[in-house]
C-alpha cells in the first residue's frame, strides 16, 4: 500500500495539508520541505533539522491512525520505534495505529529531487536521534489541530483540554474522539509557531515495550521482502561476475545456455568507467535472463566462458598483511597523523615501563540473509523499483542517471529488508537491474545467488594495529602510540586523500582524551578488493585492538584489568572531544561497573572460568561487555555474556534489548568464526560453509542486557552499539581461562593454533 499521495504535486505546505484533507476525508499531516513551502514557514516549526524533514500521519473519520515509517527497517526496529515517537506525541491509541513502510518520498522542483519525507536511511545508527529531532513535530502538530477543533466544538479554551488515546477530554468529562474531529481539524489554519512537544512525564508509549509492527506478518510468512515481489511478464536475471573486479570477459559461448527451456537472453554487463563504487556494476558480469529462477540458474550453469584477470591477479590477503606488518615495523611516516596530543616521544624518555603489541583483524563480508536483489520496471516515462535498500535516495540517484527520467518519475519502494549491515548503502545491484530492464524492455527480477553475494561485496578491510604504551612510576598510562595500517573503505568515494583514514580510525576513540600523550597514525594500504561501509566500522576493529591491549597492560602490571580501566577512565567528568561532542567518563565507568557487578567480577582472580571485560564509547552512547568462558580440554565455552548500555532516553525498551542481544551474538559469531580471504586475486568464500555464522550450540543460551535508565538525555542509535566490546571482552576472558592471548581474529582458529 502506498500512502504517498503527494507525489508530483507541487503545493505549498498549507495547501498540501488542506487539499489532502479535503480529498481523502481525513486529517493528514506531513511536514514538507521548508524550501518548498510558501509562504515560508517559521523555522522553529521544524525543529533543529528543518532542512531535512519528513513525517506522515493520517487519521480517518473512524479514528484509525496510519503512520508512515520513513527509514528502511533492516531488522533494527525503526519501523516500530519511529512511528511510536509520532504516536505518543499525537496521544494516539497505539492499538488503532497501523504502520505503513514508506517508499522513497521524492517530488520534483526545477527538475531537482525534493525529498518529501526528508532523510530516509536505515542501519546507520542515526535513525532514532534524527527522528527525535524532527518526527515529534508531526505528532505534536496533528494533536494541536485536533485540540483546536475540539475547543471550538466544545466552547472551551484549547489549553484546558487534554488528549488521551485518540480522544480529546474536557475538564467536565466530555469526550470527543479524534475521528469525529478530523473534518473540522483539517480546515483549520496552521499555527504561527510550532506546537510544543509533550513534556516527557506525559509520555504514554515512549519508554514502554512495544512488539515489532511486522511480527505477525513475519511469523505467518506474509511479510514481503523485495525478493518476494513480482511483476507480470518479469524476467528473472541471475549473474556470474568476473572473479577479479578489474578483470574482463575473454570468451563466451552463450548457445548452450540459450538452449535451456525458458532462457530468454544472455547479456554482458560492464562497470562504467568513472562511476564511484555502488553506482555501477561491481565487476564485469554475464546475466542470464529467463522466465523463472530455475531456468535462469540452469542456463547460468551451462554458460561456457572465460574471464581474463586484471592486475589484481597476484594479490592475496596474506601478502597484504605482510605489507602492513612491514610498514608498521619500519620507520616510514604515516599517511595521516590522525591525532597527536602532548608529546609521545618525550614521554617515552621518562618511561617506567613500555608495552607493545600488534593485532590482526581480517576482511569481513556483509553476508546479508536476503541476498542482493532488485525488481525493476522501466517504462518510457516511469520507473518502478522494489529495492532492499538502506538509502533509497542513493538508489534513486543510480536509477536517475541510468534512465534520465525526471525526479518524480522514479518510484522506489523499500519493503522490510533482510539485513543490511552497510552493504545496501551501495546500489550496484540496482544499476544491474536497471541496465537489464532497459535492455530487454521488460521488468526484471534480479537475484544474486549466495556465491555471488560472498564473492562480490564491498568488504570491511582487514587491518593491523601496532600499539605501544608507557606507564609512569605511579602506574598511570602516560603515553599511547597507536599505528594502524589498512586499505581505506573510502577509496574512490569522493573523499579527499587526507580524509581517507576516517573509515578506519576515529580521533575521539578511547583512550584518546584520557591519556596525556596520545598519538594515532594511519598507514594507507593499496588493494584492488572492493571496500565499503560495514557494521560498527571503525569501532569494531579499533575496540578489539584497544581493549585487548589495555588488558595486556593490566596483566603485565599484575593488576586487575577492571582497576586498570577505572584508573584510566578516572573520576566522573566531561572530556571535550575533537568532533565537538563530550565523553562523560561517569557514564562510561557506570556501564563498566554494571557488567562487572553482574558477572561477579570479585571472583575474577580465583574463578576456574575466565572473566573478561571491555568498554567503549560510540556517538554519544556507552557500552560494556563482560564474558565468562570455560575450558574443557581444548573446548572453549561461553558460559555467560553480559552487556550494559547507556543510550540516553529509550524509545522502545523491547526493541533496544533485541538490538543489544542481537548485536552481541552477531559480534560473537564474527569474532569466533568469520574471515574473508583471497588468493590469486580471488575471494575464497563461496557459501555459508566457508563463512560459518555461529551455530545455536556455539552461542551462549542467554545474553544478559542491562539498560541504564537515562531519560534526561536525548536518545542515541543502538543497532550496532553492542558490537565493538564483544571481541575484546571475549579475548580477555579466553586469556584468563587459558593463558592464550589471541591477537588475531577470527578467535577460534587462532586459539586452536596457539593452544
Amino acid at each position, binding site marked *: 500500500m502506498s500512502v504517498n499521495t503527494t507525489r508530483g504535486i507541487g503545493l505549498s505546505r498549507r495547501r498540501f495539508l488542506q487539499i489532502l484533507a479535503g480529498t481523502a476525508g481525513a486529517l493528514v499531516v506531513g511536514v514538507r520541505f521548508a524550501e518548498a513551502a510558501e509562504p515560508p514557514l517559521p523555522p522553529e516549526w521544524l525543529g533543529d533539522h528543518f532542512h531535512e524533514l519528513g513525517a506522515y500521519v493520517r487519521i480517518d473519520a473512524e479514528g484509525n491512525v496510519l503512520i508512515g515509517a520513513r527509514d528502511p527497517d533492516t531488522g533494527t526496529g525503526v519501523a516500530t520505534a519511529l512511528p511510536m515517537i509520532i504516536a505518543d506525541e499525537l496521544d494516539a491509541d497505539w492499538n488503532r495505529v497501523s504502520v505503513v513502510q514508506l517508499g522513497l518520498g521524492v517530488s520534483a522542483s526545477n527538475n531537482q529531487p525534493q525529498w518529501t519525507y526528508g532523510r530516509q536511511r536505515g542501519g546507520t545508527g542515526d535513525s532514532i536521534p534524527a527522528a527525535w529531532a524532527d518526527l515529534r513535530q508531526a505528532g505534536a502538530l496533528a494533536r494541536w489541530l485536533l485540540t483546536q477543533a475540539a475547543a471550538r466544538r466544545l466552547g472551551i479554551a484549547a489549553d484546558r483540554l487534554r488528549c488521551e488515546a485518540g480522544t480529546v477530554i474536557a475538564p467536565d468529562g466530555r469526550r470527543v474522539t479524534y475521528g469525529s474531529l478530523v473534518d473540522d481539524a483539517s480546515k483549520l489554519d496552521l499555527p504561527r509557531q510550532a506546537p510544543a512537544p509533550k513534556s516527557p512525564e506525559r509520555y504514554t508509549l515512549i519508554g514502554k515495550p512495544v512488539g515489532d509492527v511486522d511480527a505477525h506478518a513475519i*511469523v505467518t510468512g506474509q511479510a514481503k521482502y523485495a525478493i518476494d515481489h513480482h511483476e507480470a511478464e518479469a524476467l528473472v536475471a541471475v549473474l556470474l561476475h568476473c572473479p577479479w573486479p578489474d578483470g574482463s570477459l575473454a570468451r563466451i559461448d552463450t548457445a548452450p545456455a540459450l538452449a535451456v527451456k525458458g532462457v530468454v537472453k544472455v547479456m554482458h554487463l560492464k562497470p562504467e568507467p568513472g562511476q564511484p563504487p555502488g553506482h555501477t556494476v561491481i565487476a564485469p558480469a554475464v546475466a542470464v535472463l529467463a522466465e523463472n529462477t530455475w531456468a535462469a540458474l540452469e542456463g547460468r550453469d551451462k554458460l561456457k566462458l572465460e574471464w581474463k584477470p586484471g592486475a589484481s591477479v597476484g594479490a592475496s590477503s596474506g601478502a597484504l598483511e605482510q605489507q602492513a606488518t612491514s610498514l608498521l615495523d619500519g620507520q616510514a611516516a604515516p599517511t595521516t597523523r590522525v591525532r597527536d596530543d602532548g608529546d609521545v616521544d618525550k614521554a617515552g624518555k621518562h618511561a617506567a615501563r613500555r608495552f607493545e603489541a600488534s593485532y590482526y583483524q581480517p576482511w569481513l563480508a556483509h553476508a546479508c540473509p*536476503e541476498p542482493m536483489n532488485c525488481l525493476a520496471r522501466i517504462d518510457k516515462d516511469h520507473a518502478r523499483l522494489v529495492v532492499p535498500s538502506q538509502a533509497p535516495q542513493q538508489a534513486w540517484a543510480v536509477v536517475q542517471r541510468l534512465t534520465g527520467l525526471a525526479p518524480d518519475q522514479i518510484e522506489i519502494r523499500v519493503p522490510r529488508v533482510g*539485513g543490511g549491515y552497510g552493504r545496501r548503502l551501495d546500489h550496484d545491484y540496482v544499476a544491474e537491474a536497471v541496465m537489464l530492464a532497459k535492455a530487454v524492455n521488460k521488468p526484471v527480477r534480479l537475484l544474486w545467488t549466495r556465491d555471488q553475494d560472498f564473492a562480490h561485496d564491498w568488504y570491511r578491510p582487514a587491518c593491523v594495529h601496532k600499539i605501544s604504551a608507557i606507564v609512569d612510576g605511579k602506574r598511570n598510562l602516560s603515553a599511547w602510540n597507536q599505528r594502524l595500517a589498512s586499505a581505506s573503505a573510502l577509496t574512490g568515494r569522493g573523499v579527499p586523500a587526507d580524509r581517507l583514514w576516517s573509515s578506519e580510525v576515529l580521533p575521539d576513540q578511547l583512550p584518546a582524551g584520557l591519556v596525556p600523550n596520545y598519538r594515532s597514525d594511519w598507514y594507507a594500504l593499496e588493494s584492488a578488493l572492493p571496500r565499503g561501509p560495514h557494521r560498527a566500522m571503525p569501532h569494531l576493529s579499533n575496540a578489539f585492538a584497544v581493549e585487548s591491549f589495555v588488558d595486556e597492560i593490566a596483566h603485565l602490571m599484575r593488576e586487575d584489568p577492571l582497576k586498570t580501566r577505572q584508573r584510566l577512565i578516572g573520576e566522573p567528568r566531561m572530556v571535550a572531544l575533537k568532533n565537538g561532542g563530550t565523553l562523560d567518563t561517569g557514564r562510561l565507568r557506570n556501564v563498566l561497573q554494571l557488567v562487572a557487578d553482574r558477572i561477579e567480577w570479585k571472583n575474577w582472580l580465583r574463578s576456574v572460568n575466565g572473566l573478561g571485560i571491555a568498554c567503549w564509547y560510540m556517538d554519544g552512547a556507552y557500552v560494556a561487555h563482560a564474558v565468562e568462558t570455560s575450558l574443557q580440554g581444548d573446548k572453549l565455552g561461553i558460559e555467560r555474556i553480559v552487556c550494559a548500555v547507556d543510550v540516553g532516553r529509550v524509545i522502545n525498551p523491547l526493541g533496544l534489548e533485541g538490538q543489544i542481544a542481537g548485536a552481541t551474538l552477531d559480534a560473537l559469531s564474527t569474532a569466533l568464526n568469520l574471515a574473508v580471504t583471497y588468493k590469486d586475486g580471488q575471494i575464497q568464500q563461496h557459501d555459508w560453509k566457508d563463512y560459518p555464522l555461529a551455530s545455536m550450540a556455539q552461542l551462549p543460551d542467554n545474553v544478559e542486557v542491562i539498560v541504564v535508565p537515562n531519560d534526561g538525555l536525548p536518545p542515541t542509535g543502538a543497532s550496532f552499539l553492542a558490537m565493538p566490546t564483544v571481541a575484546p571482552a571475549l579475548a580477555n576472558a579466553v586469556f584468563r581461562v587459558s593463558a592464550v592471548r589471541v591477537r588475531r581474529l577470527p578467535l577460534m582458529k587462532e586459539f586452536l593454533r596457539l593452544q
Partner: protein
Amino acid sequence: MAPAQAHGVPVVPDSGIVPEAARNGIGIAVNGEHFVHIGDPQMPLLWYLRDVLWLTGTKYGGAHGENGADLVLVDGKPVSAITQPMAGLDGKRITTVEGLTANDGTLHPLQQAFIDEDAIGCGYCTPGWLIAGVDLLQRKPQPGDVDIDQLSNTCRCGCQTRVRAAIKRAATGKAAQA
C-alpha cells in the same frame, strides 16, 4: 470431411481437435491444497513454491540450504526446499510457514511464542526457524537446551537466544494445554 456413412455404419464426424496427451505430472499438496507440477521434474521445490505458486514465505538463503531459510515440512519432516527436486515429491504433503497458521487465522503456538519473545530480527530467516522449531516440538514436546542446540539454522541478526526462549515458551504452553 470424412464420408457420413460407409457400409451402413454411422460414423461420428471428426472434430479436428487433437486430444491432450496424458500428463504425468507430480501431484503434491501444499498446505492442504493440491497442485500438479508438469514442468521440469528437476526444478527444486523452493522455486516451485516461490516462482510457480508465488508462496514466498519460504526463503532463498543459499545453494545448499545451510542457513535453513528454505526449510519446509515434507510429510512432516524438515527438508531443505532448494535441495529437494520436485521429482521426489509425487503424493507428498508439503507444509510451508504459511501453512503453520490455522485456516481461521489462529497462530501455531510457536508462531505466537516468536511474537511473545520478540524472537525476530530482520525476519528473513524466521520462517526457516519456525519450521525447524515445529519439527523439534513434534519430535520432542519438551525440548531441553541440548535439543535446541541441534538446530542448524543460522541468524545474522543474533536472535538465537530469543528463538531458544520462544521454543521453550511454546513447549510450556503445549504442556499447559495438554
